[in-house]
């Protein structure tokens, strides 16, 4: 018999970026709120403090900031004919764990999508006609426009403390910024970070080719900063430990540095850790949720938490899983194309060139996760899709980060992986290479989707979620286009040696190497209940008091890192709840 807790106005499932944002915004309405977090509590001190955090083995390799596969994982297959097998030991993607979620261990790469990406289906059909859209591609418009979202992108950048240089202020192009970005109502809250040697070399070469380099924006404080919640950040010292690490000096944007301490001071907000939500409970009429049932790790029992509003703000994969096991949205069926929950799963297409300069010093351990110079000359809104034969685009960036030797040891092709020549190679080449990365869009397809696995169970006896995913020719063609352009630029830089790593025709999805934790879709937004699980306010189409936030809302992935859009959409949802829903709870569309 489940224990029952006192009813709350709002229950928040997952206290990462979007759970913290919704918590803060709704707490300001005076609502009684509880957040349930599966993982442990964590704060900058003591959890991220120096020097314990500066430990590549523990956090970079053994992944101690991350969700454990033993807690929750998925099964993976590349197509419908394969038997999916569990993702047992994490590699390809790394969901976070504990308070702050993935917002604690990200790189801080914060971008807005392009206006064209928000309305991509319309943009493509107007320019080239629907005939260029591959038959199995679920190309869609977001049900919100860039112009509608601009105030919410701005709000998130202000709260999160983003450093950068505007390239388009209310339509006016600004030198030194990204000339191809969407318009901004005002500049970034902090100036850009300084540029390391690799970024400078890349920018010089790009400029000489007629491209438009700019300092990459990032959730990395370049100065001292206090946000609207009174949260204070300190300037970054380029320690190089961003990705997979918590920031030890309050410089990286995270729920911890920008929201949580202020939220914890709100008397009408509370949170419980080690409380894993197992399912959302439904009212008999099936139109609303009554609350959630969670497993309390401390007492080892199930607990029912009633609430008037349920916010699902866990990581994308966990949100979709909770929806599937709770019956929110009809499960997507890839055979018939019907159903919405699990539909439109997408990922990210990346590649890069590494260049070796034996007489130059790059000090690869100096940097930030968002360090460097970028170009967006091959972004979605700059490519002639009709001519090139694909839909998509990428931004490029060069800037040192990590540089920790267990994982970051680029060696020229042909260097043995062990033995005397490996030992000679690491001395010869460590610190004498630089790379440029291409970070590209990934479309949604009928064939890439999420559902429940028929065989494997989690520790609570629930079916694991099954991921059916493989690379698609459209995105691989985009990547090969980037390879050609990038190698052309890299050659002008005159490296002693260079090598490329771009997935190409026929590349199969490999779960072993880390690629990105930009898993998107599965509870996509849509303008009608047939194409997505939630409406433009991230409100479940079929359960009006359930709101589902995060990258699962994406209709397809953009060319950028997802956090800027995730944060903007969370503020957009919070605004709709505050101004439209609370006074009259109902389906908003």
């Amino acid at each position, binding site marked *: 018999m489940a224990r029952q807790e006192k009813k709350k106005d709002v229950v928040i499932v997952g206290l990462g970026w979007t759970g913290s944002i919704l918590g803060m915004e709704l707490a300001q309405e005076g609502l009684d709120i509880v957040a349930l977090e599966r993982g442990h509590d964590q704060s900058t001190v003591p959890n991220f403090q120096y020097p314990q955090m500066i430990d590549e083995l523990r956090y970079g390799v053994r992944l101690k900031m991350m969700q454990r596969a033993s807690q929750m994982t998925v099964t993976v297959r590349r197509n419908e004919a394969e038997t999916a097998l569990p993702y047992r*030991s994490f590699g390809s993607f790394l969901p976070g764990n504990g308070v702050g979620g993935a917002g604690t261990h990200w790189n801080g790469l914060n971008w807005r999508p392009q206006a064209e990406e928000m309305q991509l289906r319309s943009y493509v059909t107007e320019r080239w006609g629907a005939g260029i859209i591959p038959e199995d591609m679920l190309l869609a418009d977001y049900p919100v426009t860039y112009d509608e979202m601009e105030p919410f992108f701005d709000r998130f950048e202000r709260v999160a403390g983003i450093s950068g240089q505007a390239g388009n202020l209310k339509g006016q192009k600004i030198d030194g910024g990204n000339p191809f970005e969407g318009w901004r109502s005002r500049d970034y809250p902090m100036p850009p970070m300084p540029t390391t040697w690799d970024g400078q070399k890349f920018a010089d070469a790009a400029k000489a080719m007629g491209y438009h380099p700019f300092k990459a924006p990032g959730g990395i404080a370049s100065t001292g900063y206090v946000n609207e919640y009174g949260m204070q950040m300190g300037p970054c010292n380029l320690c190089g430990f961003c990705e997979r690490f918590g920031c030890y000096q309050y410089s990286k944007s995270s729920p911890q540095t920008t929201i949580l301490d202020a939220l914890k001071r709100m008397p009408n907000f509370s949170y419980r850790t080690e409380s894993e939500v197992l399912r959302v409970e439904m009212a008999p009429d099936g139109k609303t949720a009554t609350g959630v049932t969670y497993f309390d790790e401390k007492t080892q029992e199930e607990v029912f938490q009633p609430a008037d509003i349920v916010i699902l703000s866990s990581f994308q994969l966990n949100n979709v899983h909770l929806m599937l096991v709770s019956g929110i949205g009809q499960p997507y069926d890839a055979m018939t194309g019907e159903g919405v929950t699990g539909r439109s799963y997408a990922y990210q297409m990346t590649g890069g060139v590494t260049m070796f300069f034996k007489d130059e010093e790059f000090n690869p351990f100096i940097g930030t996760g968002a360090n460097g110079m970028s170009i967006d000359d091959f972004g979605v809104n700059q490519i002639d899709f009709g001519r090139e034969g694909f839909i998509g685009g990428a931004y490029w960036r060069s800037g040192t980060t990590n540089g920790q030797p267990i994982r970051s040891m680029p060696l020229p092709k042909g260097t043995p992986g*062990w033995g005397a020549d490996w*030992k000679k190679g690491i001395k010869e080449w460590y610190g004498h290479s630089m790379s440029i990365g291409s970070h590209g869009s990934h479309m949604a397809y009928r064939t890439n989707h999420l559902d429940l696995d028929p065989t494997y169970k989690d520790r609570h006896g629930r079916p694991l979620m099954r991921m059916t995913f493989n690379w698609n020719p459209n995105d691989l063609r985009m990547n090969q286009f980037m390879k050609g352009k990038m190698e052309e630029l890299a050659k002008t830089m005159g490296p002693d040696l260079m090598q490329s790593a771009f997935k190409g025709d026929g590349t199969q999805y490999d779960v072993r190497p880390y690629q990105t934790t930009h898993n998107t879709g599965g509870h996509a937004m849509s303008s009608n209940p047939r194409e997505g699980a939630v409406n433009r306010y991230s409100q479940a189409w079929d359960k009006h008091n359930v709101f589902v936030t995060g990258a699962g809302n994406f209709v397809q992935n953009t060319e950028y890192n997802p956090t800027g859009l995730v944060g903007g959409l969370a503020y957009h949802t919070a605004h709709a709840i505050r101004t439209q829903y609370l006074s009259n709870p109902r389906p908003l569309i």
Partner: protein
Amino acid sequence: MTDLPGYPSRRGFLKGSAAGVALAGLAVSAKAQPVEPPAPLEDYDCQYFTPEEWAFVIAATARLIPSEGDGPGAIEARVPVFIDGQLAGDFGRADDWYMVGPHDPSADPLLGWQSPLNPAQIYRQAIPAFNAWCEAQHGKAFIALDDAQKDAALTALQEGDVGLQAELRDFFTILLANTKEGYFADPMYGGNHGMQAWTHIGFPGARASYREWATRHNIRYPLGPVSIKGERA
């Protein structure tokens, strides 16, 4: 610190890095003074390995990162001590991994770890299986081969040519990964003795503060490494 998951036990740590602890009190530079010779691995009291396994791991890692040439080898870096500690802990037990069956260890390698065995069990079962292959090829166990034979045997192991059953096929991959981890991880885990591997390549370890260095372009960072426990080299 030593009671945290993933850390070596206090006993193993003290045994494994006694010389490193002694160095902590001395403000010396590795460039000015060679690192003390480590205590012999033969005297190390293993947490996980049997004597036969220990001899194998010493011999194998000594070929994966040999002592010859510039810079430390796996032996000087005390990589075997690191691996022993890792296998005795949560990594060896695969505590963080999803190990629920059914298992299909013959699955496409692109689908990742599918063995029902954890890393510690893989070492335990793969070492005798690989030694049996060496016996069949050369009439001797791996440790008794000469260096060229050892390298050839390791290459065969790497290429999947020694007839290991599917459950053990990731043995070389984890042996090599663990060897490099032990070479480059913070010395508190038992390897990277005296931070010699960091000094070898020019990685400053846990310094983690470089604000003024971002714009010092194309100049080598001059300071040697520090460790999490405050050792310098």
